[in-house]
């Protein structure tokens, strides 16, 4: 396991999720000769060109054909390979949905599906390139783990866990550079175990991906109003950390879920399922994107602002939510 110094962690986050993935997969490829990387004409975007140059016989470029890429990966995996397939989150989970379900998950193949630029990261490219349903789709397929790291250290570390895990994984990545640092120092992460970043007695904010950073900012604003928040990084959405949700339901009066995803079927839904299944009486506030197509094309940052996925709006919704609690 590679350890990162503080300056290396900062550098990872400066370069973003794509570069961190590209660097990580290269390191994993060096130690695991069974790792194969597959591309569907997005090798630059997924940053696997260095891997392709270093391991020419373990790199498979299939052109603009995501479905074929996913099925070919399942075939490779049936012969013992560990496959990583990268493309835009939406292309993989929507176009390749049946291949993920039947060929990869039903056959329990050791294939890792790496969806870059999820959420609204492809801001200017429009709805066809937004990845807002991927968690819902991936979560509903048996055998498939769903991971969504909040920053580049957690990605770098979890990538090794994913490579070691025998079975299908969907890895949801955001786009862009200069990712807000959540973890300043090296640490380990375990698949399925969320991380409590801040303790608080009043509310529990569960967030995933880039929303973890906004949740932390929201918590510090709320603190000024003497509302104390527990902030939890849900880097693994499936299996969901049931224990953490049960604890939050018992200890705090409001659970908040924040995600850059359609409100239907995402993190908030996963938490609602735990609340329902365990007979918990906790109130749940879900913050995410509305169940409609977003006809706005702007920078990622501007879209997040417009759709309320920034700390200021999260705070507003939480205060409204708390009022409804009484």
């Amino acid at each position: 396991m590679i350890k990162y110094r503080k300056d290396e962690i900062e550098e990872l986050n400066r370069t973003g999720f794509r570069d961190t993935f590209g660097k990580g997969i290269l390191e994993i490829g060096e130690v695991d000769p069974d790792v194969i990387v597959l591309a569907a004409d997005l090798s630059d975007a997924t940053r696997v060109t260095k891997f392709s140059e270093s391991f020419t016989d373990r790199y498979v470029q299939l052109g603009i054909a995501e479905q074929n890429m996913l099925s070919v990966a399942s075939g490779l995996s049936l012969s013992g390979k560990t496959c990583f397939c990268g493309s835009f989150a939406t292309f993989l989970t929507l176009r390749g949905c049946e291949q993920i379900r039947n060929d990869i998950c039903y056959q329990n193949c050791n294939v890792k599906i790496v969806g870059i630029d999820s959420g609204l990261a492809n801001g200017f490219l429009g709805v066809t390139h937004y990845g807002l349903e991927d968690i819902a789709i991936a979560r509903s397929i048996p055998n498939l783990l769903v991971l969504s790291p909040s920053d580049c250290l957690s990605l770098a570390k979890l990538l090794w866990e994913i490579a070691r895990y025998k079975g299908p994984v969907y890895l949801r990545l955001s786009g862009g550079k200069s990712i807000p640092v959540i973890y300043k120092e090296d640490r380990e992460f375990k698949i399925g175990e969320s991380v409590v970043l801040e303790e608080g007695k009043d509310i529990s904010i569960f967030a995933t991906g880039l929303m973890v950073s906004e949740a932390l900012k929201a918590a510090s604003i709320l603190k000024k109003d003497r509302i104390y928040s527990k902030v939890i990084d849900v880097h693994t959405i499936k299996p969901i950390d049931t224990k953490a949700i049960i604890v939050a339901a018992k200890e705090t009066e409001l659970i908040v879920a924040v995600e850059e995803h359609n409100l239907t079927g995402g993190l908030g839904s996963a938490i609602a399922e735990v609340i329902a299944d365990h007979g918990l009486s906790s109130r749940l506030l879900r913050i995410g994107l509305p169940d409609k197509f977003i006809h706005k094309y702007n920078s990622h940052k501007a879209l997040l602002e417009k759709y309320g996925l920034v700390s200021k709006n999260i705070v507003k919704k939480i205060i409204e939510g708390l009022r409804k609690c009484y």
Partner: protein
Amino acid sequence: MNDKKKIKEIEEIARVIRKNLVCLALKAGSQKRGAHIGPGLSIVDITTTLYMNFLNYDIKNPTWPDRDRFILSKGHGILGLYPVLAEVGLLPFDLLKGFYNEESILAGHPVLNPEIGIEASTGSLGHGLSIAVGIALSAKIDKKDFHTYVLVGDGECNEGTIWEGIMSARKYRLDNLTAIVDLNGLQADGFTEDIMDMDSMSAKWGSFKWNVINTDGHDINSLLSAFDKKNRVKDIPTVIIASTTKGKGISFCENNKVYHHSRDFDREKAVCALNELGFKEGDIR
């Protein structure tokens, strides 16, 4: 020139396979459960010839890593595979007897289980060829000599992913991959030329620079020649375009789309079918 004795032997086994296929169809029909009868009958001579003469496997060690692979991409042809696997000793006959019983592990489409010779889960069309490409590619990467066979339907070739698979096999020079197209001319809704006319299947695969071999998919002598290793070309995948008849061997099933998937294959029909195949009612197992 192929050995006449061998041809006779495979023909006879194919006749027995068809008899066992009828028994499976009856097990389904007697419970008012549907089974794909025509698609199974269509491929029997192909699967029998492959398993009797070409595929390299070890029934004592079915998951032997160096075994040849056979993927039934047109998963609805499964009635043309289970009896073959049983005949060669990969699948216990008892499992055939329990087909479609509540606890049976044999579904109406293949479910991955190399222990009994099922190399991939298929059913939704257009997947198996790409899976086979992955398996053949892994053999190339690992410098292994095993061969991968994949059987697709002509109707299945309506699926765009088939052509994605075709392109990738050629790109990666998979001469260790042989595809077989079951060219029976009939799909669920009717004749292929009416549903989606694909014109010349040979010309289409040939235009993607595959090594194309045309054969009669029911003539064992022709099949033995078509699958002969000497027809393979270095660095190029091979496709065998096998002209077949859907429902082959049972007159009332032949070219009859009703038997693409039928729920009413009752005892009377089964006896009639067995008689045509040269068997009697007492042969029902």
